[in-house]
């Protein structure tokens, strides 16, 4: 038998044939004969290998390189490059479904961009681009025209509050750190952004690192710090790389290091990369991690402003908090304070995810309503679907419903509604999401991320999770809801840090707004949203099924049987309830009960 070192699979489905797949095959054969490769490389016909939009398509094995959009005339070139020289022809290579920048398109309705204004418009790896948009002018103004006290006063008057979750006024925090008479002092930038669904900080670090850096340097001048750390999660390698480039360039231009801009103010900093622990976003844990320890939270007080990194006064702010600072210094506090609500000024970035038409990153003025965000900024719900709930504040936040859609968003309003601002992740859900399942999901997360230092959080979250799992699996019993409620109260009251204190929020809020869903799971053994697998079954219905066999061929566990053009049948014992059959059936013949 001949041994082929390579196989070329060419698609001969109608679409590809229409685009000249046969000519491609002929050209391939000819060229392989000409090059003396015909005994080493085998050409095979196949079907459906790609997206069908950009045929002809072929895949070369063993490398698995997928070529699209070429024609017979390109074949000699491809053969020479790929098979003789061993080089992949990038021009025709079908990029794996790599992520495109759907996050940040042009300005959407109702958006106001301050933090994101440069993202996507300047080259983040070139400091001159930043300088061209007034970059580092605020630093100059602060150093030459303002005393540290005046800088703090300006930030205070702007009303800027911490964007990392709790919303502590930034100017007041700077003042606290400044007041402590103990040196050296440190600046920390919290770039740990661990909330699932939140990626605003990543985007700023990747798209406009100098704005964060400039804010930090101005802050260092204000509080009297001489060294700083940017603590970035390891899941953001590009952010780390971009930020390190920014630091190097800022040093070169004299914005960092000894005697900044010729003054006697000196400040430098470094990036620290995390190693995958959500709780390290909590500031005392983060500080422990910077010092090379396990990132376990410790009780506050003492606050980092008094005792932080290496036991010294440390000012910690979130990425977004810092990146607001340069513009506040340049344009003045009244400009910033003119946006927002009574108690929450300026803008806030949100990462909108879940079941909306246009997910992605947005920046809107404080005081906007959820309705405006979902329907005006994020394009609304998908066709035929309805808004059901939105989770704000990440895994320690809560679910809000229809009744909250017209609430003007600020820190206090969200807390009063039983959720929180958090870092700014918004997960929007339609009727296809089961709220018990979502609560279980968040609990799965917090339980896994609990550092284990204190018992209410460690044991309590595990018990909550077990109860929720039991309910989702159809084993819920009378009394479970009350047990959940008791546990939630206990965990919130007795946990040391914000993770434990906030962990029950998703359960509390879904219980409050969707109690009937819990009851349906427990008493009727039914998942109203048809999500919880043990509580649903897939069934093929009679007149609708044409017997096309598509479902049977796609079922991963061969649970579907039936003759061509005959009604098909699902074996419930084998079925793993993956839902693939529903998606592939063109006749809507498969129902979920």
């Amino acid at each position, binding site marked *: 038998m001949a041994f082929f070192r390579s196989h070329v699979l060419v698609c001969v489905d109608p679409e590809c044939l229409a685009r000249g797949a046969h000519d491609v095959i002929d050209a391939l054969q000819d060229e392989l004969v000409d090059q003396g490769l015909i005994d080493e490389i085998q050409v095979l016909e196949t079907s459906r290998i790609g997206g069908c939009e950009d045929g002809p398509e072929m895949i070369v*094995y*063993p490398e*698995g390189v*997928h070529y699209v959009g070429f024609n017979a005339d390109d074949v000699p070139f491809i053969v020479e490059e790929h098979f003789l020289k061993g080089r992949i022809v990038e021009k025709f290579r079908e990029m*794996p*479904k*790599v*992520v*495109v920048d*759907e996050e940040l398109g042009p300005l959407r309705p109702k958006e106001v961009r301050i933090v994101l204004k440069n993202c996507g418009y300047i080259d983040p790896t070139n400091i001159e681009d930043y300088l061209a948009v007034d970059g580092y002018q605020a630093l100059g103004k602060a150093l030459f025209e303002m005393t540290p006290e005046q800088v703090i006063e300006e930030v205070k008057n702007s009303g800027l509050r911490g964007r990392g979750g709790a919303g502590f006024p930034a100017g007041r925090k700077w003042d606290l750190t400044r007041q402590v008479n103990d040196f050296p002092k440190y600046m920390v930038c919290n770039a740990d*952004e*661990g*909330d*699932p*669904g939140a*990626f605003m900080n*990543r985007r700023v670090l990747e798209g406009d690192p100098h704005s964060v850096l400039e804010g930090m340097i101005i802050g260092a001048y204000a509080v009297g710090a001489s060294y700083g750390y940017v603590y970035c999660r*390891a*899941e*953001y390698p590009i952010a780390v790389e971009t930020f390190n480039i920014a630091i190097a360039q800022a040093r070169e231009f004299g914005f960092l290091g000894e005697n900044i801009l010729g003054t006697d103010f000196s400040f430098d900093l470094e990036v*620290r*990369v*995390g*190693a*995958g*622990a*959500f709780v390290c976003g909590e500031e005392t844990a983060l500080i422990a*991690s910077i*010092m*090379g*320890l*396990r*990132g*376990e939270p410790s009780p506050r007080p003492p606050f980092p402003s008094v005792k932080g990194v290496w036991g010294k006064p440390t000012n910690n702010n979130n990425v977004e908090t810092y990146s607001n600072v340069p513009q506040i210094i340049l344009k003045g506090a009244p400009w910033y304070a003119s946006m927002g609500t009574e108690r929450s000024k300026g803008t806030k970035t949100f*990462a*909108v*995810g*879940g*079941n909306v038409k246009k*997910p992605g*990153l947005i920046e809107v003025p404080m005081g906007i309503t959820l309705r405006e965000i979902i329907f005006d900024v994020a394009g609304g719900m998908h066709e035929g679907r309805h808004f059901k709930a939105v*989770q704000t504040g990440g*895994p320690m936040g809560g679910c809000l419903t229809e009744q909250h859609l017209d609430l003007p968003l600020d820190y206090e309003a969200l807390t009063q509604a039983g959720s929180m601002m958090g870092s700014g*992740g918004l*997960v929007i*859900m339609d009727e296809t999401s089961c709220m018990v399942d*979502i609560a279980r*999901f968040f609990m799965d*997360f917090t339980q896994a991320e609990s*550092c284990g230092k204190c018992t209410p959080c460690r044991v309590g979250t595990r018990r909550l999770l077990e109860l929720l799992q039991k309910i989702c699996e159809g084993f819920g019993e009378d009394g479970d809801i009350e047990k959940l409620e008791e546990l939630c109260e206990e965990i919130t009251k007795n946990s040391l840090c914000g993770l434990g204190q906030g962990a029950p929020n998703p359960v509390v809020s879904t219980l409050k707004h969707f109690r009937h869903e819990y009851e349906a799971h427990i008493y009727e053994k039914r998942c109203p949203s048809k*999500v919880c697998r043990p509580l649903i079954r897939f069934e093929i219905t009679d007149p609708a099924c044409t017997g096309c066999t598509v479902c049977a061929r*796609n079922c*991963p*566990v061969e649970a579907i049987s039936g003759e061509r053009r005959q009604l098909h049948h699902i074996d419930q014992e084998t079925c*793993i309830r*993956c*839902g*693939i059959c529903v*998606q*592939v059936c063109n006749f809507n013949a498969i129902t979920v009960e």
Partner: protein
Amino acid sequence: MTAPSTERDIPALVRAAIEKHGAKRDALIPILSEVNLALGYIPGEAFKEVRKQLHDPTEGVFVAESQLHALASFYDMLATKPRGEHVIKFCENAPCHVVGGKAVWDTLREKLSLKNGETTPDGKWTLVTTSCIGLCSVGPVVLVDEDLYGNVTPEQIGDILGRYE
């Protein structure tokens, strides 16, 4: 990519990592991460080597091996077990979950016959969940080694895995 065990020179690797990050207490996490990145996990020998090489009486840095293990057990990314040739990371967080992540996750587990954290007997695949990688707007997200796949559907899993055959 995991280096074949015959080629790896752990003492040299550790030396390079210490040189890069400094022989200080607060460099322990970066040093361990560096080893983890190079080998795919931190073998027992590497812990010993870090302790040995950092044991420098003049600098006054002392670390016990138990301290190093305590760090590795705390931080999810520091692995102490060998990983498969390809590591598949699946984002199993709510934003990806509500846009179809659940079906993708089920299909992945079925196809590979693996549970979270397991490696296939032939050492080819390791399946783990990851924390949100911030690409939720194109979820569900699957990461195979360094390759990112967004908007993944269950039907695509076969194709995606096929690329690494």
